[in-house]
């Protein structure tokens, strides 16, 4: 499936293919943990990019599919540890939705290991950097999502119009 992917040479001779991971992080724990990784100057590949939401409970299945649809090779959702949620229990809802996400991905022929849910506290900069590096390595081993992303792009109902949706699974 690699044929479908155009090699994106980095400026300055980067790798031919750099895994792209969309990380959707809650404001209070994971986003803060990612900031701490930065403050601590821990390193991880530039292909991982973070979108901030207030709570991991905000992550609807449409966001995950949208990321793959737009060409992400992996999706990482980060929330507070169980019991630590700033909104009491949003992360438990995320944990439940993980099953929906995984089933959805299987239906689209996407390996479920391309999706990951992690609890990262505001103090766990090192954990975040470790997870980021680990996940990117795993996705490198899986290779680009390529043709599946293309299929997703052709699939109907995933345009911006699909607000909120996909909760009925």
């Amino acid at each position, binding site marked *: 499936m690699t044929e479908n992917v155009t090699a994106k040479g980095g400026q300055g001779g*980067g790798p031919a293919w750099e895994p792209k991971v969309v990380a959707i992080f809650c404001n*209070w724990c994971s*986003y803060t943990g990612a900031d701490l990784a930065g403050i601590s100057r821990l390193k991880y590949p530039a292909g991982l990019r973070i979108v901030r939401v207030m709570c991991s*409970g*905000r992550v609807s299945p449409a*966001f995950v599919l949208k990321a793959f649809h737009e060409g992400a090779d992996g999706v990482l959702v980060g929330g507070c540890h169980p019991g630590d949620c*700033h*909104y009491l229990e949003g992360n438990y809802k995320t944990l439940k939705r993980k099953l929906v996400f995984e089933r959805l991905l299987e239906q689209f022929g996407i390996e479920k290991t391309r999706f990951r849910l992690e609890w990262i506290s505001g103090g766990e900069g090192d954990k975040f950097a470790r997870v980021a590096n680990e996940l990117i390595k795993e996705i490198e081993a899986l290779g680009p999502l390529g043709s599946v992303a293309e299929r997703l792009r052709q699939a109907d109902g995933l345009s911006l119009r699909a*607000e*909120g949706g996909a909760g009925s699974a």
Partner: protein
Amino acid sequence: MPGPKIGVYVCHCGSNIADKVDMDALRDFAGELPDVVVSRDYKYMCSDPGQDLIKADIKEYGLERVVVASCSPRMHEPTFKRACEVGGLNPYLMEMANIREQCSWVTVDRGGATRKAKALVRSAVNKARLLEPLEDKSVPVDPKTLIVGGGIAGIEAALKIAEAGYKVYLVEREPSIGGQMAKLDKTFPTLDCAACILTPKMVSAAQNPNITLLTYAEVEDVSGYVGNFEVTIRKRARGVDEKLCNGCGTCQEKCPIKVPNEFEEGMGLRKAIYTPFPQAVPNKPVIDRENCTYYKTGKCRVCERVCPPQAVRFDQEDEIIKERFGAIIVSTGYQPFDPSVGKQWGFGRYDNVITGLQFERLSNASGPTGGKVLLKDGTEPKAVAILHCVGSRDKNYNEYCSRICCMTSVKFAHLVREKTGAKVYDLYMDMRTFGKQYEEFYNRVVAERDIYFIRGKGAEIMEDPVSGGLLVRVEDTLLGVFREIPVDMVVLNVAMCPRPDAQEVAQKFGIQRSADGFFLEYHLKLEPMKTANEGVFIAGTCQAPKDIPDTVGQGAGAAAEALKVVLLGKVTVTPTTAEIRETLCSGCRMCIPLCPYTAISFNEAKGVAVVNEALCKGCGTCAASCPSGALRVRHFDNRQLLSQIEGVCAE
């Protein structure tokens, strides 16, 4: 239809960002994005001239959206929101791209960092295009502050707030306030006695009409949010009517039951009805129901008979107090490291291996030996070893430095010399005497006779097969030799650790913990008393190990934070709440049970869900589940987030 006019401002942050990200390329890239009418780069966007650039452009270009690519929004979001507001733009029309903490600082190569920065800027521009103006709302604040933990940090905070004229509830789990400091003998570097400087503050706290002291009490439940926390406190039954009791102590004299005294670190005995120490505040005893004969067998009641004011109440029940507070200060303190987990120290196996707090009690005039430093058999020691870093600076236990142990050890060395004729061996890894007058104190003690400072970690404590005393093994790293030092007493200066129930307390108050288990501050250097939960502050050793001066400083600082909330009389609540678009709502009610704040109800007449915006905190869990997209979270709606995802993915 053309989109809103967007201005993009790229910050160099000195060299913090500019070293890794090609600023010119990023600025030019931003300028090419749709709807961007101006893009600039500047050395420090957060500086006044940087902010002025934004303000001037809002007027000159008629900007309708602003994107700042700089540090984390956790640092400067308020700065740039304000700049927009002053410039005449609604502050919610500003979006930030985090190209420092999440880009330049974490990326190895310049090419990758520049690519990532472009993606983050595009993502922010995408979101900015879809932003809408919002207005902050404010709600009234309850002017009372709750302080949890009556050690020196909590006492200091309570006094400061009360002296400013505001009401405080000080809740302490033990029968008396005072905390760990009440156990100490002398305090470094001045050697004034802990009780002499602490008890006046304890008494002031008890006498201040603005302070409600709740000892032998615990917080059971916290709900609500900054300005209006609803708190349930359980005041455990003392078995004594506090109003009638005059603290004469007759009950304690006559009580026939003796159990180990927690306050004496297990070395002395107390009665089943007791005050933990003579200067306790309040000076009213409690009945320890686990050990009292009456609660076990239904007989005895000696204390009741001998009490002159007839204050003993065996049938007293726990009291549940429900109160509303504007701010909360958590100052729940630390737990000393338990050295019995490591066999090498022989703690619990050898009688004369004691912890630092046990030494404090021995040396304290109100302690079990009346202030004499004695071995278990009642004789005076001839040689004492003091070990630093027991359970700290040790990856097997706690990696962190416990901060106080070097100074405590130097103080102990001095006290041993002052009270006995014993030689002192002080085994240190590094001597860290960092505070005001600390190095001077160290130099003074170094010059004292018969104190030997040995650089090396006490590795093992054994019984001397010949003398029956103790042997301390240490590698003297300055001489490069192994030594076995015969002593008859060893003082283990153990680490300050998080309380065993720190996780439970953290969850109760909605605060997080750092990797070492202590409570997590909002910013390690700049916001040490704030937490991620607005209106909840931390002070003292529950945040990290610290000495008395630093603890007092944080207590006062937390008081300032709490006063900031209660003095204003109102708090701003975020307008980024959920709303229902009634025409889209199908009335499926899926969202209603998902809301942790019960902010969503159902309008039977209209057949649609209704959001109570006063209760909504804007987490968005409801919106993620709404099958028809009728629930919308302001500032984090589906279109905005999907366009951000698009932005980070595109090349």
